[in-house]
């Protein structure tokens, strides 16, 4: 009997984490001609809303919304020098967005937005989400919110957590002309979950039946909003076909994550990465890393090592608590992979405020890794931990992405900066 040795891969760059930051880092590294390995659990991208925020709120405690994200950035950099954005400049951020949306376009996911201005989309509770780049499916909502034409919100029997009545009534505050209708899902009933519905709507027959069922409700409606179930793998085609069938612009309203919006990204990434030569370890974790003379040796697996990757550089894009990049024990927050120091409140009693929606946000959300200007994490003494180790995305300290609405931008811009830095050193 032979004990099989673990498969081994040698690459330039190991990207740990398959959220937006990790995916962006991998895509950008491939673009720069680096050989890349990528590991992370499937959950990380599937929770994405698909929206690419840059920055919409500053300062958090005032809840001030900004129309121009770059103006907000300038203010933020001045007020919060410890924020990761304070280490970035506008051209770098714009280049990151341009590169990533171009990549998304290549893999079938079109994005739209205003130059230097935030866009608006509807949320399933009838509020407005301010964001920077919007998937094609939700783009019409921006114009809708701005011009408030008579529109129709559609939902389907059985689909939970999405009520067209709720959206029409709640958003009616600023968009008075909203009607709503609930239809049986066309073309044979799939189970009432978004993913099966999205898959069904990729079929032309289903779309035709939907259009037919909708036609009595369309009189005088200039726009139709749907839950985000207009296709998973072929959204471009699904959206165009439905819009044509209905004769009006169509927009999607995201459903509660994890949703089809994240699944689209995930599915497209999963297909695109191996095609681009990335050695993928989807749904795997990096269990351990050893620093070696000229790089890192990473054990990749789930409960035990299944492969070994040797890389010159590592990009740590493991996210925060949900992504398992940071582990919040009862006694404190740790970074489990490298044991990097985590900037955090002094005691657990200071992690959260007494009210969930406290305008100031929770201090624990600003905990994370400190880095130098090149996004290399630092030891407590202020020295870069390793020469070829970068930390990008939400794991960084000093931001509150849910409140500032800056998660995607942070991921893309820091990933871009780290890859550029690493590639530039070659």
């Amino acid at each position, binding site marked *: 009997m032979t004990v099989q040795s673990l498969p081994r891969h040698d690459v330039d760059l190991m990207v740990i984490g398959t959220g937006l930051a990790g995916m962006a880092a991998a895509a950008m590294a491939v673009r720069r001609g680096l050989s890349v390995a990528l590991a992370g*659990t*499937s*959950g*990380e991208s*599937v*929770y994405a809303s698909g929206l690419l925020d840059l920055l919409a709120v500053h300062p958090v405690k005032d809840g001030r919304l900004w129309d121009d994200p770059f103006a907000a950035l300038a203010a933020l950099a001045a007020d919060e020098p410890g924020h990761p954005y304070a280490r970035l400049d506008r051209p770098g951020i714009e280049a990151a967005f341009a590169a990533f949306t171009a990549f998304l376009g290549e893999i079938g996911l079109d994005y739209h937005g205003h130059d230097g201005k935030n866009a608006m989309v509807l949320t399933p509770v009838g509020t407005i989400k301010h964001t920077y780049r919007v998937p094609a499916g939700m783009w019409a909502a921006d114009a809708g919110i701005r011009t408030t034409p008579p529109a129709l919100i559609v939902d389907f029997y059985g689909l939970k957590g999405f009520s067209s009545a709720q959206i029409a009534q709640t958003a009616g505050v600023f968009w008075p002309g909203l009607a709503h209708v609930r239809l049986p899902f066309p*073309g*044979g*009933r*799939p*189970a009432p*979950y*978004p*993913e*099966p519905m999205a*898959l*069904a709507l990729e079929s032309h027959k289903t779309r035709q039946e939907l259009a037919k069922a909708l036609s009595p409700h369309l009189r005088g409606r200039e726009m139709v909003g749907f839950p985000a179930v207009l296709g998973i793998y072929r959204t471009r085609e699904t959206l165009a076909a439905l819009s044509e069938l209905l004769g009006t612009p169509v927009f999607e309203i995201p459903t509660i*994550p*994890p949703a089809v919006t994240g*699944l689209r990204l995930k599915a497209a990434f999963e297909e695109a990465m191996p095609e681009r030569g990335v050695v993928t370890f989807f*749904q795997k974790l990096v269990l351990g890393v050893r620093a070696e003379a000229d790089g890192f040796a990473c054990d990749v697996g*789930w409960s035990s090592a299944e492969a070994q990757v040797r890389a010159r550089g590592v990009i740590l894009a493991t996210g925060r608590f*949900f992504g398992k990049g940071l582990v919040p024990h009862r006694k404190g927050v740790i970074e489990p992979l490298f044991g990097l120091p985590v900037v955090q409140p002094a005691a657990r009693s200071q992690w959260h405020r007494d009210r969930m929606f406290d305008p100031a946000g929770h201090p624990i959300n600003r905990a994370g890794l400190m880095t130098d200007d090149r996004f290399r994490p630092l030891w407590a003494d202020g020295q870069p931990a390793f020469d070829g180790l970068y930390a990008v995305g939400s794991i960084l300290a000093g931001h509150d992405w849910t409140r500032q609405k800056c998660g995607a931008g942070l991921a893309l811009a820091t990933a871009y900066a780290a890859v550029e830095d690493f590639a530039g050193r070659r």
Partner: protein
Amino acid sequence: MSLFAVILWICLAVCLGGTVWRMARWLLPDRSLAVPGLPPSGALAALLRSLSWPKALSAAPRMAFTFLFDILFQGHLLQRGSLWRWVMHFSLFAGFSGLFFFHALENFISRPFFPGYEPTLDPWQFLRNLFGAMVALGLGIALCRRLFVRDLRRTSRFEDFFTLALIGLIIASGFGLEGAKMASPAAFERMAADYYPTPDAADLTALRAYWATEGGMVFPVESLPREAVTPEILEKGREISEMSCAPCHSPPGSAFVSAPLSRVLSRVLAPAGAGLTDGLWWLHVLSCLFALAWLPFGKLFHILSTPVGILLRGLDPGEAAARPGMAAPLARAVGLDACTHCGICSRHCSVLPSFLALGTPEILPSEKLLSMRRLAGKSGKLTPAALAAFSEGGFVCTECMRCTVVCPSRINLQDLWLVSKREAARLGHPELAVRLRSYGPGVWETLARRARPVARTLAASPSLLDNPETFACCVQCSVCTGVCPIFRLPDIPAAEVDVSPHQLMNLVRMGLADHALSANFLWNCTTCYKCQEHCPQGIRVADVLYELRNLAHSKVEAAARAGLLDDMAARPQATGDAP
């Protein structure tokens, strides 16, 4: 008519009648063996019709070879079998045949066809001993195999040992009878009286002395005083014997079993005298006649059915099970009868470990065949428990065909097992999983440990179901349901997806595993493991689901043992449309 004749005729009649009855069932097989859409009774006609002359002619050499090699030489045992097995069965077969044709039927075969036949003359005396010894050898090997080979011991039943014992009794009583005759002074005196009519006491003593020395007879002291045995007298005895006995009696030495036996017998049993010989005669004859009468009703019937089965199989060498034709019911009926319960199939059975773990004998082909024989014999009148076991055995079978390949009797077992699944389903015992699916919440609540949620603690057992950590990290995102292939099927009835994967997990988390068993979805899961693979938190969704199915099986098995099952099955509360 003598008592013997009465018994003989009765036994013959029983044997003939039984054989006719049994063979009639080949021609009119039970409907459980039928091919759907085809009448079961026309099988023979169909078979014959299908044999056009050219076909029959071309088959003839093959059939002849089959007859000579497989049946007479028992070659079918050599293929894929062990040499021991062949030695065992060939000894039994050849020895018993020899005894049957030349000894039992001596008046019909040996005497008419072999002039000068005398049972006590060589080669007959020697041959009879040889045949008997062959049978004894075969019996010995068979017994050892059944007793000492673990796989065979497992499937050996009373009837197997009974049959061995019966044949053993026939052979032992035969040898004993012969030995007793040889050792019997009474027989000597009778023979001497008949064939050596000069009652010269000295000559008679000489003859006695000679037979006592050469044949090992033990005479009472009064008829053969010890001092009478001198070389001279012996020589005289030999002369008389040459003259009067030898034409009909070969020297006892050629009876290489009986003669030594007679010496033992004469020492041990001398006082019993003539009574012993008579007793042994009756024992021998009655055991033979019993075997004759029992032939159609026990496994000895394979003497007839197995050759027929082998020949029939030879007519249709194709993989008949794939598309059974008109003749299939006939082949199935013969096949069921052709089983000798030798246990080889079970020894090689692909699901033997499942039997070891689950313990239902019907999982093993040799045992399932017995159930099936009962099923085909009484048109499905198996008890519910027997039917359940039959069904379990049927559906655990993986159709690997190995039993069919190794069967020494060339039974198309594969075909029978495919039929067994169909029949079990027809009789209301489809695959257990299908049955479990049809049980509604009422049944499972009856079987639940408690109506309310139960505690789950890490310390209770190593199963995922009991371990609260199994779900500790669930964030209720329902990705497991989103990726489920069943949930994306169009037109799926709501009852098929009554509970989603994450709801199933939540039920277990809440301590309601026992109640979750009623969910149709539990049985509609394809076990594709997408849920588990996509779970962002690494929850072993599909593994838990497997444990739930295991739990359902074990609960129902326990209920069946406790006698609750029939009660439950009587009032199934199917919610979905069970297939």
